């Protein structure tokens, strides 16, 4: 059912615009930049870390431009001193890079600019890169990611070779991969492929499963950029979860920043208010109050929040697709979408639909993060079978 890789390829393909002329190759001083330029600050102190072996001194709070509502937010972030900006070829249907490029204008030379490619072969991603450069109005990227890779096979030799070629051509300074799911599975491949950076979903809710992977990357000299630092809790796409408290964002951000293995973060910033909140969070220390907020939040979302760790895969002796079934229950109980839950349940293999968890003396599936698995599976059968 999940054709995600295909979707990303095609989305990117559909967005590809003819590149009128090849991006000009610059060997200018911008590419050798390794320390932050002086610029005005809004008062709160800027904090920097080094992004792995790249040598780039990045602000610990960067800017995720994906859903930014207005270019003035990007411009203002650069003026405030934030120096790491993240976009992608496919954001906003392909329009995001142009917005970011226009908003940064001449400030581009003072910041580090990252983007991502979505297709799955070397030649295609190189074509995408040319489009990205054109849309961003620059002749090089500081960081260029393969977008959304969650298993080693997706980081093919062909694509890594293309990334290396772009590096040799001076179109990108450093290469990496972004990962939304299953980070531990790709760590060895990232090291083997000699990538420079990884941008990974990483938040307080993933401490146990992903922190060792993040540390291993950092120890290998690979720069780590954290995204989705708010654990997608209570926001878009997480409607079933309890609404997050107003002071939660800064705590979640500081939790990630305090990890020495993480160089920077790219929280999506919609507006100036959010920018200022995150900017202020950058200079604050993670303290007991933050820990208390996150601990309470973790308890709130625990029964709902699947950390996509994959540890329940294959645990059920009767072969039930556990994470999927938990989700079907959420459709019905969380969203009031009973037909949707049933529809998905009935797409399962008949042998799985026929399983009754009550027949087992005890459940072999234990979620290490406290999602109430056995209860949820029984609930699915009660509702849909």
């Amino acid at each position: 059912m999940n054709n995600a890789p295909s979707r990303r390829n095609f989305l990117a393909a559909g967005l590809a615009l003819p590149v009128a002329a090849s991006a000009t190759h610059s060997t200018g001083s911008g590419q050798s930049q390794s320390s932050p330029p002086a610029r005005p600050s809004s008062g709160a102190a800027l904090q920097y870390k080094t992004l792995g072996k790249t040598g780039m001194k990045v602000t610990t709070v960067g800017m995720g431009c994906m859903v930014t509502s207005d270019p003035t937010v990007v411009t203002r972030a650069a003026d405030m001193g934030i120096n790491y900006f993240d976009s992608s070829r496919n954001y906003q249907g392909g329009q995001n890079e142009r917005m970011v490029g226009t908003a940064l204008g001449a400030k581009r030379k003072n910041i580090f600019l990252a983007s991502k490619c979505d297709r799955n072969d070397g030649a295609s991603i190189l074509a995408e890169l040319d489009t990205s450069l054109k849309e961003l109005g620059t002749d090089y990227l500081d960081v260029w990611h393969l977008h959304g890779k969650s298993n080693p096979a997706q980081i093919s030799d062909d694509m890594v070779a293309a990334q290396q070629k772009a590096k040799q051509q001076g179109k990108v300074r450093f290469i990496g991969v972004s990962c939304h799911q299953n980070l531990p599975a790709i760590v060895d491949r990232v090291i083997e492929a000699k990538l420079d950076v990884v941008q990974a979903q990483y938040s307080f809710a993933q401490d146990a499963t992903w922190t060792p992977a993040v540390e291993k990357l950092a120890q290998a000299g690979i720069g780590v950029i954290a995204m989705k630092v708010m654990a997608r809790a209570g926001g878009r796409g997480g409607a079933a979860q309890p609404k997050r408290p107003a002071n939660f964002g800064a705590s979640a951000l500081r939790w990630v920043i305090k990890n020495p293995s993480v160089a920077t973060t790219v929280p999506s910033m919609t507006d100036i208010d959010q920018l200022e909140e995150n900017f202020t969070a950058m200079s604050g220390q993670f303290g007991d109050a933050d820990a208390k907020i996150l601990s309470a939040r973790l308890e709130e979302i625990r029964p709902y929040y699947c950390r996509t760790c994959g540890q329940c895969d294959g645990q059920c002796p009767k072969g039930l697709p556990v994470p999927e079934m938990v989700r079907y229950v959420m459709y019905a109980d969380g969203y009031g979408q009973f037909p949707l839950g049933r529809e998905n349940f009935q797409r399962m293999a008949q042998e799985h639909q026929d399983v009754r968890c009550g027949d087992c003396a005890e459940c072999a599936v234990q979620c290490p993060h406290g999602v109430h698995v056995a209860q949820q599976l029984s609930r699915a059968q009660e509702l849909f079978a």
Partner: protein
Amino acid sequence: MKRLLCSLVFCAFVMAAAYGQAPAAAPSCNMVPGWTQAGEARYYTADNLFEYMDGNSEGYFSYNFQNMHGVTCKKGDNTFVVDISDMGDSDNAYGWFSDTRDMRQPEYPVGMGGQIVPRRLIFAKGKYYLEIAAEPEGDHTPDLKLWAAALAKSVEGSTTPPAAFSWFPKEKQQSLKLAPESVLGLRLLKRGYVAQYDYGKAFVVFEDTPDSAAAVMQKLRERFTDNTAAKLGDEAFQTTDKYLGRLCFIRKGQYIAGYSITVDGMDPAALSAALAAKIR
């Protein structure tokens, strides 16, 4: 057999109605002759769209995404990924279209508004946002046009863009889109339309009531303290800002309209007054 089939279709319709849902708008490869389905049909909601397109799903969520039906179709060496998203209402469907279209490319007349580029079709009709991405590289325009017609027929809904789009001057318009939140990058301007011109940026923000719009105007005055009142609409003021330039806010009933980043030689108050006059 025919009776059985009819009964099944009727049951599906009744069940959908019982749950308060219109029959799903799902694409099918046989909508256009010569195409066959590859793989299983897709179905996503706000809970799992992330699995399909990672972070790009955030854009859909901004525009009230409800669910998406999709299918991958093949004809010879060509592959089309066809998706229909239910955005809840026509404002959001057209809003998402307005955000994802490439203003440098011409529109294509389908639904409320559409666009075809060599490897991509997008359009909005009613509450639906429809899209096709084509593979391999090359010009797929003829096939995309056939699909545009077939898909447009398959979904119900308005073919007229939201009225607000007609309020903005067409001349020298570089872009016009629905900002689903934080108009001008200001959180207190929750939702509205924004049009970019070479002489400034026009906006119309929607509030639920005149009272709530008046409250927002008061907060704007508190944010832009160095302001000058203007006798326009129900209330108005002008100000300047480092990032938003010379700007003017006018309240007309539940709407707040105006211009920002107005270039020298253009009067933001006069431009805003003309815009507010168009609001019906």
